[in-house]
């Protein structure tokens, strides 16, 4: 239990360092653009791919389950929309990104720690926590919502394509389902979640990398831990945010 308090303490301390007295603004612009590329653009493919298949599967599954005739066809479009917007695009996509982005960040920063590159920065007088972590946090907060929007679009489109091409639903029914009792706030809810998850993934992973001790083995452990902790925190905050925002 004391372990958890120590983690929370050090994590908070790191965040304080990240946000106090950063280096020159001008330097950060290039770093942030680099990170947007690394964290965001390079994850585009996997996010789109997952969303396409997920949209298709949800559509087919719903179709298979409403064979009774009591339930109208447009429910398929409705269900695909709700699934994609409410949970898949933010939570599931971010869980997957925590594996890809989180382990990447933790091992990058962890390697810099064990090869004394972070000490070298500190000696130069650079606020290493801020220099290394802040661009990643900002970049992910900027780019994650875009990834989420792309995931929504891909999923819903794939649902329409598969639904109509396999003949389980007509395009008109699907469209009716998509717009049925649509609340724009649900999109905001998902975008808010994605920003929170972006912060969790980058800051938690950076934390585990930044406090790595030892050698290559420990870098591996840090990156595993980064992913596990990110996932746990995402799930907890998903629950809290849903209660706060939707009820």
């Amino acid at each position, binding site marked *: 239990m004391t372990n958890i308090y120590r983690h929370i303490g050090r994590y908070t301390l790191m965040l304080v360092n990240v946000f106090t*007295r950063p*280096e*020159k603004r001008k*330097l950060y612009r290039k770093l942030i653009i680099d990170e947007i590329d690394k964290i965001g653009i390079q994850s585009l493919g996997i996010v789109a791919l997952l969303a396409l298949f997920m949209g298709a599967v949800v559509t087919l599954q719903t179709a298979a389950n409403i064979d009774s005739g009591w339930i109208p066809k447009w429910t398929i479009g409705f269900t695909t929309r709700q699934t994609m917007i409410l949970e898949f695009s933010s939570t599931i996509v971010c869980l997957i990104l925590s594996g890809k982005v989180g382990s990447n960040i933790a091992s990058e920063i962890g390697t*810099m720690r064990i*090869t*004394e*590159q972070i*000490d*070298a920065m*500190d*000696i*130069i*007088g*650079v606020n290493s926590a801020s220099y290394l972590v802040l661009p990643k946090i900002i970049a992910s907060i900027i780019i994650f919502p875009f990834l989420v929007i792309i995931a929504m679009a891909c999923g819903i489109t794939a649902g329409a394509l598969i639904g109509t091409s396999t003949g389980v639903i007509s395009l008109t029914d699907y469209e009716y389902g998509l717009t049925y009792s649509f609340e724009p706030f649900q999109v905001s809810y998902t975008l808010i979640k994605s920003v929170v998850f972006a912060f969790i993934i980058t800051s938690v992973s950076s934390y585990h990398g930044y406090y790595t001790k030892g050698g290559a083995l420990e870098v591996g452990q840090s990156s595993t831990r980064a992913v596990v902790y990110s996932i746990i925190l995402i799930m907890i905050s998903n629950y809290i945010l849903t209660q706060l925002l939707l009820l």
Partner: protein
Amino acid sequence: MIQVKDISKSFESNDVLKNITIDFHPGKVNFIIGRSGSGKSVLTKCIVGLMEVNKGEILFDGRNFTAMDRWDRRGIRQEMGMLFQGSALFDSMTVEENVMFPLKMYSNMTKQEMQARVDFCLERVNLSGKNKLFPSEISGGMQKRTGIARAISMNPKYLFCDEPNSGLDPETAIVIDNLIKEITYEFNITTVVVSHDMNSVIEIGDFINFIYKGEMCWQGDRSQILRSDNDILNNFVFPSEFMKEIKDVLRRER
């Protein structure tokens, strides 16, 4: 001048440094020597503030570094250069970007001025033309020299070198030693070298501090080290029978 006053450092129950007092002199190559595990690296890390001391203080030209918070320390940090044992080059940056990094962060130079300074530093360590290579593409000795170039790019007043020639062949080691000596004299730097390489100690050491099991055991210059009566020091300097014979010859000459 760096004054280390009566510092102690322990990890849990392990007392690594005990009441160490040293003066490091400007324009001189000051050595810290000692057996493996005697606390040399810990001492260096305490001096530069990568570790906090439990007791005592460290003054940089009269400025109490120990009492400063981390933001005030940044001012003094910018006057320091450090060569790490493993070079610690930023491996996402080229040789040139590594050397330019401190300038980008803290100087008000224009791009051309920075480039000129980088070229000068690389020239100084015989690495002209290697600007665009990455650390993984150059040899260990070149990495050390890049590390030195980065350490001197901001014109430091204090230079720290942790085992600058460990893992290098004897000839390259001498090149690095001489480089350290030359820039120390040329720019009047207070240089601190950690080493257990007796060759470089005799070659370039102006002041030598011998640490034994975390305590200051012997201090002196390089002519004194060969003629000392301190048994612990002698065992370190002349570890083999062959070396002991050399010692006896030196004795007789005296």
